[in-house]
């Protein structure tokens, strides 16, 4: 067989799978978003009503805006905290040596843990009666004793952010260690010889050269933060009330619990839009090297 034919035949099955499992559902979701789309009413999936679902979300659904707000704050906080803490840890671990390399190996563990399980684990630790957190902080900081973490809206949100940051720091750290390794050592040494302080070396030499990797990390983490569902579902299930209801959770609830699949699809598509920009930015970094 000629290579010219073969090369397309080899790609074909993958393209078919990607089309069937990702592109088709995207398009079909878009179609559903313009329908009445009630799961309980056959035929309503073909009953079109234009942009009404979108208008409904924008004008008449405080819960939608709540989830946009929750997701935004959640993303900003988790991306910011995870990046800064991971960068710190990466700087601590980058010098290598047996001890530090051993710690790097351990970093894989939280990342292999299913996010749903991370949610369970944090719910366990923050249990007001017999949770670990209560026992430790209740003793160290008495006002925190017997605080019902997951009952208070702000604290529950804080716990969700903590769980997310805990789960992602290890992975981001590993990426940044890789990034630090590619910063040429001689530029750092040159700056040190010139008498620059550790902080100046970091700010003026290391950080600018780390910028591309940092950008990749921030984009990637933003995407995963925006999508967050699993651990929220297991940790607070969006509650108390809707205090921790992210967009994914809001879509799940409307589509699956209330059976309003048309409306859920419209919100889902509103969520796809920021993803397109982030993906575009990410793709630029991936292809930069080729």
């Amino acid at each position, binding site marked *: 067989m000629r290579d010219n034919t073969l090369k397309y035949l080899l790609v074909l099955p993958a393209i078919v799978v990607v089309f069937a499992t990702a592109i088709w559902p995207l398009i079909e979701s878009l179609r559903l978003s313009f329908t009445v789309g009630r799961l309980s009413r056959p035929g309503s999936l073909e009953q079109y009503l234009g942009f009404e679902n979108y208008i409904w979300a924008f004008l008449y659904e405080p819960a939608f805006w709540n989830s946009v707000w929750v997701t935004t704050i959640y993303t900003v906080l988790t991306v910011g905290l995870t990046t800064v803490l991971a960068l710190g840890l990466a700087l601590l671990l980058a010098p290598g040596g047996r001890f530090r390399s051993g710690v790097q190996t*351990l970093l894989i563990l939280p990342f292999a843990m299913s996010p749903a399980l991370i949610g369970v684990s944090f719910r366990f630790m923050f249990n007001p009666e017999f949770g670990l957190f209560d026992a430790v902080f209740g003793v160290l900081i008495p006002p925190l004793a017997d605080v019902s973490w997951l009952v208070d809206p702000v604290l529950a949100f804080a716990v969700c952010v903590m769980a997310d940051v805990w789960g992602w720091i290890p992975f981001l750290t590993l990426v940044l260690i890789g990034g630090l390794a590619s910063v040429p050592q001689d530029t750092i040494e040159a700056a040190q010889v010139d008498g620059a302080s550790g902080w100046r070396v970091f700010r003026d030499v290391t950080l600018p050269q780390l910028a591309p990797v940092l950008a990749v990390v921030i984009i990637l983490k933003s995407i995963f933060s925006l999508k967050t569902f699993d651990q929220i579902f297991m940790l607070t299930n969006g509650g108390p009330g809707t205090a921790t209801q992210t967009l994914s959770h809001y879509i799940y609830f409307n589509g699956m619990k209330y059976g309003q699949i048309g409306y859920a699809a419209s919100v889902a598509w509103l969520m796809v839009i920021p993803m397109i920009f982030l993906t575009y930015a990410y793709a630029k970094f991936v292809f930069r090297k080729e």
Partner: protein
Amino acid sequence: MIGRRRKQVMNAVQLALILIAILIMLVPIAWIFMAAFKNHIDVFQLKLFFTPTLENFGTVFEPPFFLGHKLMNSTIVAFVTVVFAIPIATMAAYSFSRFRLTGETTMLVVILATQFVPAVVIILPFFVMFRDIGLLDTRIGLILVNLAIVMPFAIWMIKGFIDGIPLDTEEAAMVDGSSRLQVIRNIVLPMAAPGLLTAGIFCFIIAWNEFLFALILTNKDAVTLPIGLALFKAEEGDLWNLLSAAGIIIMLPMFVLALIIRKYFVQGMTMGAVR
């Protein structure tokens, strides 16, 4: 002298910070490990020392929990997903790596982009379709949608491995009269085998931990382990000792697999943006 003194202090501070980081990282995991070996009375007390019991690991497999059934579902779903994904991804990855295709960049970007589509967007139409054709609560249905999340990773990761295989052996074999397919079978596949195994393990972990699809598509017959966690609730609240035992059964195999492929984890997750 002052300089050296300062350096020692800095070193000690660094070590202390690293130790704190390890502690924070391991405590939630250790907490689950401990609770899994406690009886249901000890769980409600913060004992660090207790008489460990293996009872919980037996109870979770008994009625009404039947964790064994979920374990089997998870294993079959993750395994079959990988068995389909890896060969398909390998063919595509080889082609992307070795040839110039019309629209190649577009295809690669689209494949990359599908990874970023929120799972909840993908699952809505699949739920409707599976309901209509009777694939709800089946392992086949779950495998099909799992391919959506696994394929982009597999293609990008394997492409990275094949990119790293030098061209000359392939070219030499072609000069000797081997066909392209023979070259792929006799030269590329053996050389890429460790990479394919790595990608397979990576995809297995992702499929094993998958939550949202299984939550929406299954309710009894095809329930997987992460969804099974929701079972351990009684009227008086969560059954933490059983929940923890189930948690260990979910995470321990993944820890082992992740350690095996740890060198490639970063590359896999970032799809080659960071090597």
